[in-house]
């Protein structure tokens, strides 16, 4: 007994045990692998558009084409209100900020399946992979956002009545919330799909459906009172609304709603990391 005690005092750097505590996120380890995160981002950026003619122009082309279709279908045919804003600006702002969530969620919700090969052969903190995905998504977002700002400046110059206000300083926070919300829900889904493949069929159209439950193609103000509560339960709603409010001066902004989004993100991220960590320990046996 005494002998065992002495041995236990020996300094071991790593201990591998069958079970670990629920929250075993090792930030020190994550930090040590930061270069890997950057390499993954670099890989994603370099390889996605290799051997394409237009290259990164696609980053911008996607929102342009989507906006054009939305203007035509929702604006001109369905005649959905845009809160008195130019249709192009209204849709483009929604598409750009929503796009970051969709990208983050879609990419991270495939983490285990996509990286089976690497995960089966070498250990590194698995969380690096989804983190790198939201980082490369962020680069894409930045390009699209710059494009949006260009269009936005054009409308400002020609004297469109849009009112940017001090709330623009919230935009970095909104972006972080979007990224982490996508990450949190994405890693929950990828953990579940590691075992239950059925969910992947859900994911592909869940994001599309969720967009209709978010004021992307319509303003929150045009929603009848009795449905508003459901839209406000969607944590992405306040983020999109705040984004539009800060830049365009219309939409509904409330600290309360934003705080709700913030809390929701924290909770989703927290549970996401717990589930993700639990899954990563044994997922190689189930895929």
């Amino acid at each position, binding site marked *: 007994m005494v002998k065992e005690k002495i041995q236990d005092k020996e300094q071991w750097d790593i201990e591998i045990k069958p079970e670990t505590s629920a929250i075993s996120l090792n930030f020190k380890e994550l930090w040590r692998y930061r270069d890997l995160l950057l390499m993954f981002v670099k*890989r994603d950026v370099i390889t996605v558009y290799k051997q394409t003619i237009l290259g990164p122009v696609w980053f911008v082309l996607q929102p342009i084409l989507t906006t054009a279709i939305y203007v035509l279908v929702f604006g001109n045919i369905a005649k959905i209100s845009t809160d008195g804003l130019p249709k192009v600006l209204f849709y483009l702002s929604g598409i750009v900020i929503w796009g970051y969530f969709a990208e983050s969620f879609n990419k991270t919700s495939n983490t285990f399946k996509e990286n089976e090969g690497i995960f089966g052969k070498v250990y590194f903190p698995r969380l690096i992979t989804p983190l790198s995905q939201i980082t490369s998504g962020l680069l894409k977002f930045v390009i699209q956002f710059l494009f949006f700002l260009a269009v936005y400046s054009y409308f400002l110059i020609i004297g469109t009545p849009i009112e940017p206000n001090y709330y623009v300083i919230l935009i970095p926070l909104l972006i972080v919330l979007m990224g982490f919300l996508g990450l949190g829900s994405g890693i929950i889904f990828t953990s579940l799909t590691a075992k239950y493949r059925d969910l992947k069929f859900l994911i592909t159209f869940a994001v599309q459906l969720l967009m209709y439950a978010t004021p992307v193609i319509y303003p929150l103000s045009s929603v009848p009172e009795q449905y508003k509560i459901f839209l406000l339960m969607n944590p992405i709603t306040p983020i999109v609304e705040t984004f539009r409010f800060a830049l365009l001066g219309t939409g509904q902004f409330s600290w309360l709603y934003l705080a709700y989004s913030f809390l929701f993100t924290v909770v989703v991220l927290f549970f996401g990391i717990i589930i993700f960590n639990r899954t990563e320990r044994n997922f190689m046996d189930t895929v």
Partner: protein
Amino acid sequence: MSDIVLKVENLSKLYRLGEVGTGTISHDLNRWWAKIRGNEDPFGVIGSTNDRTQKAEKGESVWAIKGINFEVKKGEVLGIIGKNGAGKSTLLKVLSKITAPTTGNIKIKGRVASLLEVGTGMHPEMTGKENVYLNGTILGMTKKEIDSKFEEIMEFAGCAKYADTPVKRYSSGMKVRLGFAVAAFLEPEILIVDEVLAVGDAEFQKKAIGKMKDISSGGGRTVLFVSHNMGSIRKLCNRGVLLVNGEISYSGNIEAVIDNYLSEGKGDLGVPLVKFKESNGVFQPIQLQIKNRSSDELTNTFSSDHAILIQFSYRTTEELHNMRIVLAILAQDDQILFTYSSHSIEPALKEPGEYVVSFTIQPELFNTGNYKIRLHAGQPGIQLLMKPDIVGSFSVEKFQKSSNYNPMMPGYFAPELEASY
């Protein structure tokens, strides 16, 4: 502080057999329901207890490895050998944190890098240089570390000229060399290497083995090496672990482990009396006896100063002309050491009946080691009566005449020579 850098205690890993993924929801719901009612996990019977006897009965789960214990000291090169399916890869996967163990634990000092595959994560569209950085960081290096070793890596791989060419244009050999080169310049305290050297040409394999030897002896680092190639194991490792059906069946000096591995799975070869199965041909082997010639005792362990008596008895049901029994002695690696045919001592009697043929091997012939007995019988040009088959084995311990220091010399034989100045 001891210099043990890796300590594995009672490590086991349970795998569920059959198709994982079908019926998991219903299983999980069942489990969950049982938990709510406070019952035992209905599917966890085998998983929750480390009861080895249950494995065979229920075919639902299987222990890929069970009750593994070993320690590795700093600078040691441990060879892990075993047949396919013995649990080597599972052990490495658990050691390198790819999958969690079911029971037991592993304690490690220092950084671990595992090389279960060459060039993990390399992307064909990226250049050689980019891939070195990508692969290096995946293996746990920082960008700074790679910066300082980049030239050496490219040189070792022999790809310096192609640093800016996408890897998809590389030959498969170049890809492997590049992947190994990155790993070779890792500087972990513990390096885990799976069968990766099976690829690449002989020259590169030699280079790779040399590099690994440098890592362990020069750098004082620890290497765990899995291979089916006994040659590389022998060259590289100083200690070994033999896995059989997920358990350590032998561990110790690498030569002894290899011997054990090579003699593994040969059934009841280790006994001095082998009874043959009843047969009803014209030639029916009955039994094989291995005896100490001087004491006439059944045994199959000998000191080299004793004569070995091998007696084979058989029954014939017809007259078999010109029949002979051929005895061959083989070394552990199936190298035939010598063959002896009974044609010169052919009995005059040819009528059906029971016969015993005795062979005596003189003392002072074999070196320390395990040897196998192979027998066959036939009538040349007419028929084969008994296929050549390894039927028994014996071991010899070299008898040392003088009490001086007597190191074990290599070789199958160790006869006493007449030597003089």
